[in-house]
């Protein structure tokens, strides 16, 4: 044992010089529980009230817009005859994309034993759920007769007619629903031990009751841990292909059509990469301010986390850039004049500015992340992440809307103009997203405590042995 300790000391020393530790040194398990829980247990700070009053009112605006939409008709949006899908589906794809980082971080990084995921996966997963909720609003509400959308559910009925399972929209519905439910399960399973922590620390009756219910009576015995770990592993294993499939299916909405600019086989990988890109950007956009507000979080979500995420950002961003190039090349290489024209119009047509913006935000800006300087300076990272968010929205707009403005028959070409309802609805979903996230950080542990504890040096069951 004794010499074992010596080795471990040397080891940890080397580790210290080689790389930043995942958790700042000197943070004990107790400290982690105390601090993370204290965010939930302390009084809501003033900034929180300000923030939620803003996002809350935006959410009300969303409700108002949707009511107006359903009561009056899809015409209150700017959609028109060549452009049957515009901001509605653009925003849908945008939000779904954002909803990817969470499960990706949790599942894939878990399977690949990336320990650095532990302090960010909880927030990322929460973000996934909220993003998917925002996304789901659009396909549901964009249909002309919402009250008839039960036709989409395969239940036996007096009409003796069935759904068309060849339609990518059906695939889409199933994919998004599955993704949402599985993410919820995955997220909640991960929460149980931490809810137990909150339960055990609870002082008031109300907290005792609610956290008690939510924790399901978790006791943390090995009998529970061993099944728990297996279940978590299985969920992670299931989520990984799922998260890749979801955005592929979303891309089928376009890839399975005949419209030039939509009908593209590169879409599935291209969309997935884009989704991860946008997702990570959004994670950063959220965690960096959170880190700034709850200072000590900086010890859990360290610069090395941000640095790693930036690398993912850079990588996926480059894939997306490659996809843009490939689209152009294939349009030219196919020799199909309709394809060529469509992509030519993307660059030179009336919507050239949208395309330019997309290239700037998604391809140009992330290149800065080659330099350690930008990866490690939080402000810069935040700025670049913001660009990525904007860029991803415009990518979807370029693909969904502008492809429709000019397709086969020049006689039916036309422009798209958003109405105030389009804009207000989008702002509304941002508000909803914010509201849900603010509630999350107030009432649930933002960082996965038991996993962070597990990566502490002191968590090593046999300090002597090599791990």
């Amino acid at each position, binding site marked *: 044992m004794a010499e074992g300790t010596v080795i471990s000391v040397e080891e940890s020393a080397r580790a210290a010089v080689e790389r930043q530790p995942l958790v700042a040194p000197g943070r004990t398990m107790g400290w982690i529980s105390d601090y993370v829980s204290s965010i939930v247990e302390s009084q809501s700070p003033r900034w929180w009230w300000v923030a939620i009053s803003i996002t809350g009112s935006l959410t009300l605006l969303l409700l108002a817009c949707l009511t107006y939409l359903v009561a009056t008709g899809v015409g209150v949006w700017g959609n028109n005859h060549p452009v049957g899908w515009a901001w509605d589906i653009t925003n849908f794809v945008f939000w779904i994309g954002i909803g990817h980082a969470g499960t990706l971080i949790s599942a894939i990084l878990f399977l690949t034993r990336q320990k650095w995921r532990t302090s960010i996966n909880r927030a990322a997963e929460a973000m996934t759920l909220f993003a998917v909720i925002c996304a789901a609003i659009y396909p549901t509400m964009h249909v002309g007769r919402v009250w008839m959308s039960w036709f989409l559910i395969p239940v036996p009925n007096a009409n003796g007619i069935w759904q068309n399972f060849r339609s990518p929209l059906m695939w889409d519905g199933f994919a998004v*629903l599955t993704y949402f439910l*599985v993410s919820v399960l995955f997220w909640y399973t991960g929460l149980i031990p931490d809810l137990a922590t909150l339960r055990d620390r609870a002082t008031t009756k109300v907290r005792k009751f609610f956290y008690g219910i939510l924790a399901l009576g978790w006791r943390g015995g090995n009998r529970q841990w061993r099944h728990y770990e297996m279940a978590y592993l299985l969920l992670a294993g299931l989520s990984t292909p799922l998260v890749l499939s979801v955005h592929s299916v979303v891309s089928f909405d376009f890839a399975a059509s005949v419209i030039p600019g939509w009908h593209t086989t590169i879409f599935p990988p291209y969309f997935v990469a884009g989704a991860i890109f946008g997702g990570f950007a959004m994670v950063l956009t959220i965690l960096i301010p959170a880190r700034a507000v709850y200072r000590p979080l900086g010890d859990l979500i360290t610069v090395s986390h941000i640095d790693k995420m930036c690398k993912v950002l850079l990588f996926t961003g480059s894939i997306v850039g490659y996809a843009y190039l490939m689209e152009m090349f294939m349009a030219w290489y196919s020799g199909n004049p309709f394809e060529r024209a469509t992509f030519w119009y993307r660059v030179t047509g009336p919507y050239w500015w949208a395309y330019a913006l997309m290239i700037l935000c998604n391809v140009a800006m992330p290149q800065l992340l080659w330099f350690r300087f930008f990866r490690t300076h939080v402000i810069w990272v935040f700025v670049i992440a913001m660009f990525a968010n904007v860029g991803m929205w415009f990518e979807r707009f370029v693909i969904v809307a502008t492809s429709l403005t000019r397709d086969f028959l020049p006689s039916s070409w036309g422009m798209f103009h958003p109405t105030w309802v389009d804009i207000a609805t989008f702002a509304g979903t941002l508000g909803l997203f914010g509201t849900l996230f603010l509630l999350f950080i107030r009432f649930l542990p933002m960082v996965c405590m038991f996993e962070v504890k597990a990566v502490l040096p002191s968590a090593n069951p046999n300090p002597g042995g090599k791990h």
Partner: protein
Amino acid sequence: MENAGNPSAPLYGVGAEFATAADLTRAAREIRGAGYESFDVFSPFPIHGMDKIVGARRSPLGRIVFIGGLTGFLTAVAVQYLPSAVIYPLIVHGKPTGFFAIPAYFPILFETTVLFSAFTAFVGLLMMIGLPRFNHPLFNWERFKGVSGEGFFAVIESRDPRFSTEEAGRFLESLGGSNVTVIHED
């Protein structure tokens, strides 16, 4: 040894607290060595390799989930293929309705399989670890709260054939356990 819970109520077992994960691991190995069957160790996080030490078999959850997934797959086949190809075929986009229509059904086959598997995994988990259970003798033990913070505990249960309160208590103490407590139900 202090008591937890209602002394007149049935006995649950004897528990002790340990300082670190390492101590708990060592203790677990000893208890197993002493031939105890029904005991459990509690920790704020899953301790690497504990299963081997306490001699637990691999969790069967995987096999159950496979069955769940299969159910999902078959459901999807029934919902998609039968109506659109067999019961009421329609001419859609000049596409075949028979066997060659299958590629169109893959996405939903996959999604449904995953969905059912995930639910089986979750429900299966709860069943195996016997949750939700809100009331448990251990919760009568004040210090046990620490289990979700930084506390490590070992509990030898009264249903163990070799169990006797004193002996178990002494044994745990000998392993370096502190605050040895006799736990009753409430």
